[in-house]
């Protein structure tokens, strides 16, 4: 059966957007709101905070490192069966976690099992979404990714209510039931065959060709650098504000303000990415530079109004770079190779994310305040955006041919946002 020459750009694609919306909500919303469970686990297992936060860290690490596997399987079998299996695994992990008797049990069930379930859902979904759209790809991405922001608003109070009603065992049971909706989301992912699919071959061939693809490698490096700095504010902003003398409640409120502007930034940037002609990489560079600048300015701002303005700016620009980062990849490697490409980028850039927060914490321990941490984070972002200039057709006035799939890595950025937010939400 010959594939379509052009992605449909609508029609069933909007159902895929809906599916991606709920999926990002169920994967990252859950991860972000896990901070609510954090307090319960510390008292229930009588363990230290650092050991309990490993649960989320393992989950995110497995989700990111497992992305290439999810991608390779999607290339072979199509996204639908892979995502549905991922949903079942994620729900199963939570279900087993509700019977946990020790912290190790939680590491294995939530971290390993649910993490691998998430690895099989998130990357294939976004890759599938990018195949369904070309002209309106950024907008579709932006809309789908708003699921992350909205869900962290909704899930944090919901999980707290579940904890008050059912204690953590019952709450985990119900979160497992919620995660079953990932299977329903997977069912919406109708397979789409595009013209390039026969040309690019199977997963192994795709992976080898990607690893020899210059622009792809440079893009991966850029995103890894960006990822290193991206999550620092989510992890350390509340602590930085408390160092400046803020109370916990206004500090948490500032994070919420940043989250709202993040949401707005995603949709606005998605729309802008499609409206502006030329390669999307230029917009990505714009947003990353602005994010880096706002990060570097954080330590300079002392007055509350300046901090609020910077938080809004950071939220908007960091949200804005997510859908665009996903849109660049199809332009680079083509929609035929997008599953593998996305998985690979996720895996590599997660290194940046995993290193970023501890590095920032280390700098803080050494220097005594967060000035160095924020400046270094901003520097990483600026260097990453500099690498983006080396991408092909950067300075041309015309878009790259729309049938090339190129959106990969922004998901990994989203995963990282979840982790810091969880730590930031460890209140009560």
């Amino acid at each position: 059966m010959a594939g379509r020459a052009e992605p449909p750009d609508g029609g069933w694609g909007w159902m895929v957007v809906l599916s991606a919306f709920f999926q990002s909500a169920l994967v990252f919303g859950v991860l972000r709101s896990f901070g609510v469970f954090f307090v319960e686990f510390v008292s229930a297992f009588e363990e230290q905070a650092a050991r309990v936060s490993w649960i989320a860290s393992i989950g995110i690490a497995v989700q990111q490192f497992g992305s290439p596997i999810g991608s390779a399987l999607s290339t072979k079998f199509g996204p639908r069966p892979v995502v549905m299996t991922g949903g079942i695994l994620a729900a199963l992990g939570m279900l087993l976690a509700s019977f946990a008797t020790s912290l190790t049990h939680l590491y294995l069930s939530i971290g390993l099992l649910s993490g691998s379930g998430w690895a099989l859902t998130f990357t294939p979904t976004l890759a599938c979404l990018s195949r369904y759209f070309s002209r309106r790809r950024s907008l579709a991405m932006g809309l789908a990714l708003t699921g992350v922001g909205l869900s962290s608003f909704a899930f944090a109070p919901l999980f707290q209510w579940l904890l008050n009603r059912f204690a953590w065992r019952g709450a985990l049971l119900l979160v497992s039931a919620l995660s079953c909706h990932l299977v329903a989301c997977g069912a919406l992912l109708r397979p789409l065959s595009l013209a390039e699919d026969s040309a690019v071959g199977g997963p192994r061939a795709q992976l080898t060709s990607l690893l020899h693809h210059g622009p792809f490698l440079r893009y991966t490096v850029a995103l890894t650098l960006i990822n290193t700095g991206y999550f620092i504010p989510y992890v350390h902003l509340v602590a930085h504000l408390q160092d400046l003398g803020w109370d916990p409640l206004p500090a948490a409120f500032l994070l919420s303000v940043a989250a709202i502007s993040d949401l707005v930034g995603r949709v606005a940037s998605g729309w802008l990415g499609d409206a502006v002609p030329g390669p999307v990489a230029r917009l990505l560079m714009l947003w990353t530079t602005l994010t880096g600048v706002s990060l570097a300015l954080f330590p300079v701002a002392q007055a509350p109004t300046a901090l609020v303005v910077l938080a809004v700016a950071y939220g908007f620009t960091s949200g804005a770079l997510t859908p665009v980062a996903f849109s660049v990849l199809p332009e680079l490697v083509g929609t035929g190779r997008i599953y593998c490409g996305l998985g690979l980028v996720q895996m590599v850039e997660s290194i940046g994310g995993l290193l970023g927060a501890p590095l920032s914490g280390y700098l803080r321990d050494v220097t005594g305040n967060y000035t160095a941490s924020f400046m270094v984070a901003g520097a990483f972002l600026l260097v990453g955006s500099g690498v983006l200039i080396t991408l092909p057709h950067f300075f041309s006035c015309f878009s790259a041919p729309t049938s090339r799939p190129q959106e990969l890595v922004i998901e990994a950025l989203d995963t990282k946002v979840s982790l810091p937010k969880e730590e930031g939400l460890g209140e009560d």
Partner: protein
Amino acid sequence: MLPGRGAPGARAARTLLPPLLVLLAAARGGWADGASTESPFTSSPVGEGPMTNYSNLSLERHNITLPERSSVQKQVILESPSLMYLTCKFTASGNLTSVCVTWKRGDEPLKNFSHTVEGNSTVRTQYNFTIVNSKQLGNYSCVFEDRKEQRGTFTIQVPEVKGKKKPLITYVGDSTVLVCKCEKCVGPSHWTWYRSNGSVQVPIDANMSAKYVISGAHNNETKLKLMNLLEEDGGSYWCRAVFPLGESEDQQELVVLSFLVPLKPFFAIIAEAVLLVAIILLFEVYTQKRKKHPDDGKEFEQIEQLKSDDSNGLENNAPRQRKK
């Protein structure tokens, strides 16, 4: 006084008499001392001598400074018997001569306080006493009556004990820990735990059953660990701290749920998810079938077109053009 009889007897009496008189005087003096200790006049409220056992008591000094026209209350937390020095300082707005200074416990007036005048308009009054048992706890006030009455009240009480306010939710088969802490205290002499069903409090004996373990990391907290919970273990638990000067206690609520409680919403949500999946897949099968039928219709039309073309072509002898 012995009556004199003969010269030798009288002479003996005269030599013995002064020492006897001295002896008698000394004895009478001793009786006088004994009588005075039995007099009702004593400054200690409990009947102990005022100068007994000061080396065991800690000294507590507390001050209140009364601002203009308002009363002040200060909380004093005591665990064990102490010597109290309570001081109140009052600045009069006008003449000091009209100020009447008293100390009251509740409404009962107290004695044995001192007061000094400092400067032109400041009065300082001090009340010293010892607290040795729980009956002496309460409100002690210094009262200044100028035009209006102003009071500085020292509320003397034992430390409060606090557990968690929210009910603790657990499941059958779990184990849980109830914690009680006393704030601002060094450590009670004794902690006890009770269960209550209704109004009856039943003490918990950790040595009797394997279910309960009472422990405490520091002296100012206590932990009750319950293991292998059953549904009957739910209810109110009281922790009580016993201090030399009194007791304080707090209540905690324990709820034990069976696993069936969250299972109902769990199955409901899973059923809903399965239903969604079924609807989506069935919808897709249905739309694919609809696509196939229009294709059959189109093929039929194309065959008709070809037939009409052929017939046209035979008449015209022109190259046939196939329509898609």
